[in-house]
């Protein structure tokens, strides 16, 4: 049991670092990287539960593989969007973009 809790703790720490980065960093690249951190924290959880959970099964690890591939795709799209934005604005600072404003 103690193994599980240490994994979960690590994942929580990773998640919080990621969340902190997402909320505070102005540079969009760092924000994207922080999101990767959060995703990896989730992956870690999935794998930990698949090994030490109540009903251990491979499903968790398979899910984490899915997540990694989807995250890769997401990062690719995110970077592409960033590049387009950078071309338009010459900046990657998140707080300069408020196109979502209603």
């Amino acid at each position, binding site marked *: 049991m103690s193994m599980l809790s240490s994994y979960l703790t690590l994942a929580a720490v990773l998640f919080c670092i990621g*969340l902190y980065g*997402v*909320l*505070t960093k102005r540079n969009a690249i760092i*924000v994207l990287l922080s999101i990767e951190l959060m995703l990896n924290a989730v992956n870690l959880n999935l794998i930990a539960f698949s090994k030490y959970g109540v009903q251990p099964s491979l499903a968790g690890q398979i899910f984490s593989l899915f997540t990694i591939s989807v995250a890769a795709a997401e990062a690719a799209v995110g970077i592409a969007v960033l590049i387009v934005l950078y071309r338009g604005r010459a900046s990657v600072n*998140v*707080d300069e*973009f*408020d*196109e*979502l*404003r*209603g």
Partner: protein
Amino acid sequence: MDNTFFAEYAWLVPLFPFIAFAVLTAMGKGLKKTGAWIGTIASFLSLVLSLCIAGERLSGNAPDYGNQMDWITIGKLKLVAGFEVTNLSTLMLVVVTLVAFLVNLYSQGYMKKDERISTFFAYVALFTSSMLGLVLSDNLLTFYIFWELVGVCSFLLVGFWYQKPEAKAAAKKAFIVTRIGDLGLLIGLLLLFWYMPGHALDFTTLHNVYDTQSGAISTGITTLIALLIFVGAVGKSGQFPLHVWLPDAMEGPTPISALIHAATMVAAGVFLVVRTFDIFEASQVAMNTVAIVGAFTAIFAATIGLAQNDIKRILAYSTVSQLGYMMLALGVGSVTGAMFHLFTHAFFKALLFLGAGSVIHSVHTQDIREMGGLGRKMKITAWTFGLGSLALSGIPPFSGFWSKDAILTAALDKQPILFVVAVIAAFFTALYMARLFFLVFAGKPREGQHAKESSSVMTIPLIVLAVLATVSGFVETPFNGWLGHWLFPEGAEHDASGLVMVVSAAVGLLGLYIGWLTFVKGTIRRNAISDRAPGLVTLVARKYYIDELYHVLFVRPLQGLGKVLDLFDDYVIDGVVRLTGHGASALGRLNSRLQGGQVQTYALTALISIVILVVAIAGRRFW
């Protein structure tokens, strides 16, 4: 011939003037002179029919006739409209139609030059019709309806010269002050409706309930109802403290003052008490109130009358005072006395007003200080006015003497103090009439005044009324109680009292004599009192500052309350509404600031919300 042949057609009496009103209103201004004749003829027809009814009933053995129809039926409740011909209503019919006809005739001359003459006659016709309806009503609801209608006609006629600010104010005052009384009557009527067995409001049932089923309505409620009804009478009949409208109502054309504010409508209050007298009789408190209010009004108004200079206002206060006499008579239980005085007063007061109108018509002023010596130029007016003054002052053998005598006798019998008050008031009455008469008709003519006698259409009514004012007292004298027996067959006897006759005649004569000494002979200086007690004279001349008092006591606070409530409405109630509106939009602005387009803010909001949610869900476990 059947004894109720004419009585069955009594509903036609008010209908004639009503038709005249309808025709005059529909035709409008085009009629002019013709319109005046339509009104006059209608009132003449009413008079003829009333006389026929009276003739039929004079024998005294004609049965009462009444007829009802359902006005509103709601479930088991029925509100009834109906008319009833009794000796009492017949007497009133004759008085009203007679005075109305004479006033109509007189107005032909008096209002000749007014461009709204047909409107005037239309209003007069409507008034006559309503007044006759009131007289014929057989139940309190119908009575109330006509009661209000005469009130509104009075309002319309007081404000007839609507361009004058005084007329406008007087009309408003007349309506609102009498409405206070009407309010009392209405509440009394509602009370009566719920307490009467079978929700009956007709006078016959009322009489029976109090006559036979005594105790059907408790004494407390009876007193309350009686007092509320009396409030109505006080308003209409200009009794203290609601008398203030009547003198102001003199802004109306003078024939109106004669018809409405002397002979008929103002007497309706007395008539109301007479009709509901059974309720009053059942409550000693109510009777005492009526007597005291009446006596007080009689002397109170008489003193004010002494210090006025407007010929019509003197007569108006005199009317108030005489109505006080009638109330006094009712309060001491003499219904006959009240009705008798109402009857004679209608003639001599209408005569005095019409005479005053004739004077005003001729000299174009109402201030008696600007008149004088008119007796030589206006002989008929002067003579008839003199007869009226004698009747009002209670000089034998004129009508006023006999009716006042009846009241004084009854008062002495029941309440000697009130008798004294009434005698003093009688003295003042004679005094102010002497002052009025001598200042106007005696002395030297004023320079530059081209007074001349009015046309015959105006003097004939004066003569007729003068004859009536002289002789009408003989229907009921201490030696001959015909009127009382005719009106109230089961009613009380008229006690003869030599003392009262002597006292009453003596104070009348004394008043006239002092008046003669002061204003003709000059033995007593005119300003003998005002030199010694100027404050007193001012107090009386300003009508004891009652108007001012009411202004401070009621008008101002109400205006203030209105203003305060207005602010309350604007700032508190509407303020809350505005606050809600502003609150909503402030909330909206706050939320829109959150939607700044900053992804990180959104994420932070989401985070905080999740934390709150988790804390809330987790927290629920603990309590």
